[in-house]
């Protein structure tokens, strides 16, 4: 590569741009083309646009939300995504089926197993692979542990966004115990890379089971005490009750899933609506609340944690023996076709749609992520509330930007 003088770099201080950057414009004047953009970026008298920018202590990752404010009240908001876009779908097209599983983990990094699961299920459908029952039970067990870890973390940053410094550290203690357990099982603390096409990568081992046993013995009280600081706290409850109310019709129109939908009263859970894995054999309830406000979403997730504990208990008791991985050829070439698989993750429905063209690489790997969908609802719930409420509502929807931006 030669550096020629007639090709200056934009980093060169001698390069002059024709736009004067005297005072930096945080909201660049791109021409507005769509109706919604025009409606949003036209300011009436007294309104102001403020960037809750990608670097912000409170947005869950790199999310930029442009707020249109009238004083302290939010009139409208426009989330701008793409700051964490890594092109996962394109990367999966250039990798083979086994490698694609590694790309799925960092999507919703807090609950990685649920990101791998639909991808792996879709691959198994394409290749007509039957997963051994023991592997299915292990998948459910580790998945429910991951769900509890994710919901603990939700409690933490819900409180953090409202100003409480303490619950997040306690949540991390809870999560730490679970994640140490899972690291004994999978080898990793966070991006587990544990599910394989046809099973899981490695059976339960002694360390995992002993840690799990220890944890289960005090899990319930630990979780209860973690919530004790918040559930009875007047300030916390008053901030959240009645905020961001969503009724079930709107929630269905906004295609919400998971706890956000169940908090509005619709008892839709993929584990019961479209059962997969060994969930038909397990006995658990689907907690539902009908208020649809932030407090309902928060309490619902705590209820789900209790149900997850029930499921883990049953898995441990009913775990069958057998192999944990189906016998597969190393080079996987499914015949051309399409497959879709959806699972119920802590945030909602995670799904994967895979198109295969007969080669050993997926032709199209589509990842459907619930946080992406839920972030649209922020624009429905927040207007006519205050800035502080915008943060609280976004926190209660529990978005993870890795999944939103893929």
């Amino acid at each position: 590569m030669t550096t020629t003088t007639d090709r200056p770099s934009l980093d060169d201080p001698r390069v002059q741009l024709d736009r004067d950057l005297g005072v930096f414009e945080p909201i660049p004047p791109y021409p507005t083309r769509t109706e919604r953009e025009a409606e949003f970026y036209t300011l009436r008298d007294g309104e102001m646009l403020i960037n809750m920018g990608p670097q912000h202590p409170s947005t869950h990752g790199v999310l930029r939300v442009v707020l249109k404010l009238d004083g302290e009240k939010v009139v409208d908001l426009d989330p701008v995504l793409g700051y964490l876009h890594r092109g996962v779908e394109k990367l999966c097209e250039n990798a083979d089926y086994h490698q694609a599983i590694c790309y799925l983990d960092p999507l919703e990094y807090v609950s990685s197993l649920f990101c791998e699961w639909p991808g792996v299920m879709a691959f198994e459908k394409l290749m007509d692979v039957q997963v051994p029952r023991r592997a299915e039970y292990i998948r459910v067990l580790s998945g429910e542990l991951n769900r509890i870890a994710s919901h603990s973390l939700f409690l933490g940053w819900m409180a953090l966004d409202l100003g409480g410094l303490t619950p997040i550290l306690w949540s991390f203690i809870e999560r730490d115990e679970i994640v140490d357990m899972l690291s004994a099982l999978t080898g990793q603390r966070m991006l587990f890379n544990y599910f394989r096409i046809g099973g899981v990568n490695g059976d339960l081992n002694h360390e995992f089971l002993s840690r799990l046993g220890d944890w289960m013995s005090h899990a319930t009280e630990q979780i209860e005490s973690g919530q004790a600081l918040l559930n009875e706290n007047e300030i916390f409850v008053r901030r959240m009750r009645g905020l961001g109310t969503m009724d079930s019709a709107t929630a269905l129109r906004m295609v919400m899933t998971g706890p956000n939908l169940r908090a509005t009263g619709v008892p839709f859970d993929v584990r019961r609506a479209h059962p997969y894995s060994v969930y038909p054999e397990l006995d658990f309830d689907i907690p539902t609340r009908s208020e649809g406000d932030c407090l309902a979403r928060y309490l619902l997730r705590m209820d789900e944690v209790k149900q997850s504990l029930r499921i883990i208990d049953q898995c441990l008791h009913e775990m069958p023996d057998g192999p944990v991985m189906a016998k597969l050829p190393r080079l996987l070439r499914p015949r051309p076709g399409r497959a879709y698989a959806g699972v119920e993750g802590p945030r909602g429905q995670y799904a994967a749609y895979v198109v295969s063209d007969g080669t050993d690489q997926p032709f199209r790997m589509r990842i459907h992520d619930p946080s992406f969908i839920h972030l649209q609802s922020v624009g429905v719930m927040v207007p006519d509330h205050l800035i502080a409420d915008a943060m609280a509502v976004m926190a209660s929807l529990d978005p993870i930007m890795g999944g939103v931006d893929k």
Partner: protein
Amino acid sequence: MDRAFKGRLEARFGERLLGPVRQRHDETEMRIAPGDVTQVLTALHDGPELRFEFLADLCGVDTGNDMQVVYHLWSETTSDWLRVIAEGLTRDDPRAPSATFLWKGAEWMEREAYDMFGIIFEGNRDLRRIYMPPDYQSFPLRKDFYLADDAARSPGGGVRPMERTHAPVDASVAALVRRSPGS
């Protein structure tokens, strides 16, 4: 696999289907033309025996020859996922009707399909890019997308060292630099 469901679909939509209804594992797949999307989705959503009120996914697919928009739906009336493939969108001007009249939540999924493939959804009030910068000039998930050349068509393209291995489309960097964003 719900075999009765296949019969019901063929009975309801017989003339609009561009091929037989296929079923595999727990999915049922039907193919329609993009022009029929509005009626088919409305019928699926509102039909008393169908009631597909839950849109599970909406995505675009580039098959190499042409493009498709794929909808995944769920209903209590059947145990299968329903996949509706609107196929035959041309590569030069891929257009499809928007599903936002039924599900407002489809707006962003269509934005993503537009951003990644260039599929224009008519009726979507907010069809702008969602992941790539607003003035990005190409569509990443298309099969004919190559990074180095296409990067040259974005502002700042061709002037970073890694992009100099391929000649940028506009050889004059001065023109590149003077071009104001958004044009």
